[in-house]
């Protein structure tokens, strides 16, 4: 982990309440897709954890949803603003286990970490299928970006206003896959857990005090002992999770 200063180069709305922020700075600490950053915002005491959506040597891309005071403030930031960021937190996804045809399932703001993961899997010559789950047409983002990477992409909306009507699990039924990776809300996880046919990895959220393993604010019990979502997670293996 490093504490780095990043400069915002872009911050724009891409769907209902959803913003894409691009920042420039040193990303050399990132080792796995699914790691996250913890951002200091002025006037907020605690940092805000946000998944790394994508990165290259000098730029970092984040996608966030405005849900409260901190993300609201983030949405008002203009290019040029400098942010204090703790970068490359958590374990991230392990792509070695993926098999040839992994399934990636992102729900809402669980979609962003799937993007760099998808990129990595394709660079490893694998053929991922991506299911993106949203509530409604206005919420959909990044369908084209995933397609451009070369992935097979399915979009579901709960109200049927776009793509397949229903939940990500409705789209999972007819797909063959060797392994799965998912990030999204817990009700979605529970639905996936009921129908998933293979092993997989789930990326969890928890309220965090520090984000780097010092406070024990984010602990959970697993079959392999107590883990901190921020340091030993956020990604847990299907086999170890106690639902």
């Amino acid at each position, binding site marked *: *982990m490093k*504490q780095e200063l990043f400069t915002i180069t872009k911050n724009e709305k891409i769907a209902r309440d959803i913003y894409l922020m691009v920042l420039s700075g040193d990303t050399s600490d990132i080792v796995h897709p699914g790691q996250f950053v913890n951002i*200091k915002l002025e006037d*907020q*005491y*605690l*940092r805000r954890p946000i998944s790394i959506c994508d990165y290259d040597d000098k730029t970092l891309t984040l996608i966030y949803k405005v849900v409260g005071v901190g993300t609201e403030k983030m949405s008002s930031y203009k290019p040029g603003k400098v942010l204090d960021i*703790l970068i490359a937190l958590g374990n991230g996804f392990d792509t070695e286990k993926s098999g040839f045809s992994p399934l990636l399932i992102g729900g809402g703001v669980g979609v962003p970490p799937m993007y760099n993961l998808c990129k990595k899997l394709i660079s490893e010559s694998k053929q991922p299928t991506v299911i993106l789950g949203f509530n409604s047409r206005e919420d959909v983002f990044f369908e084209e970006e995933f397609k451009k990477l070369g992935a097979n992409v399915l979009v579901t909306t709960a109200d049927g206003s776009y793509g397949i009507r229903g939940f990500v699990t409705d789209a999972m039924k007819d797909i063959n896959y060797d392994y799965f990776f998912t990030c999204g809300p817990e009700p979605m996880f529970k639905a996936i857990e009921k129908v998933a046919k293979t092993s997989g990895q789930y990326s969890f959220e*928890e*309220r*965090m*005090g*520090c984000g*780097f*393993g*010092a*406070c*024990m*604010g*984010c*602990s*959970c*019990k697993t079959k392999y002992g*107590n883990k901190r979502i921020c*340091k030993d997670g956020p990604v847990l293996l299907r086999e170890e999770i106690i639902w």
Partner: protein
Amino acid sequence: MVNTKVNLSGITIDNPIIPASGTFGFGYEFAELYDINCLGTFSFKGTTKDPRFGNPTPRIAECPMGMINSVGLQNPGVEAVKNIELPKLREVFNKPVMANVSGFSIDEYTYTCEALDSEPQIGWFEVNVSCPNVHGGGMSFGTSPESAAEVTKAVKKVTTKPVFIKLSPNVTDIVSIAKACEDAGADGISLINTLLGMRIDLKTKKCVIANKMGGFSGPAIFPVAVRMVYQVYEAVKIPIIGMGGVSSAEDVIEMMLAGATAVEIGAANLVDPFASRDIVNNLPAVMQKYGIKDLNDIIGGAH
């Protein structure tokens, strides 16, 4: 050149900066980031007789200028602290460390302290009396002079190292409790632990913290902490470790003027992992700015 060395119950520490229990783990998360030997010492995670998972999550809530935590003393238990954490710590920290101990009965306190007393790296005990007494109807040991004194006496009997009693601010008269601990043989007083707090989420209309209440800390509690250190300094002769919201070298000096011999840094480590190191580094310049040559000259200087 300024002098930042202070003497804490017979052990001289290079500077009075001590990361507070529960915000620094057993040191090695921070040792990955900087050389933690720059610190005066640090107080390790509250250790109990048995391993504890702690409270359900969410355990953390944000507040203006602070945070609430309800970790619930998650720790691996005293055996694992002796056999796993302390050997790991030795590899990255070569100074005496402060052992923070918690318990839910007098027997648990004495068991844990006795088990740790023989550990060569432990320089001091810091006994957290904010825990509920399971035999006393769940009231915290720290809420009455009698029960705080009882813990002090019992721990002093089984230990050879200096014992600091860490007091809870959630009491009507902290001075009488501090005095009772001094009379019972405490070598020093640490204060303050967190203030009881609560946040409610307007969207869910429920408490943010799973356990509803938690401990409030951070810069917002600094004035309360300074006031309590000041009051306790007037009443006791033993050294005081002051804490609560300290986030800068200026805060350290203010706390020492109130009466602290050393100062702990808590929540600040969580939002800025380099906070304690930066405070150590900034201290000499801030001393110079205020014409302070030796920190020992300012302890209790505001009285």
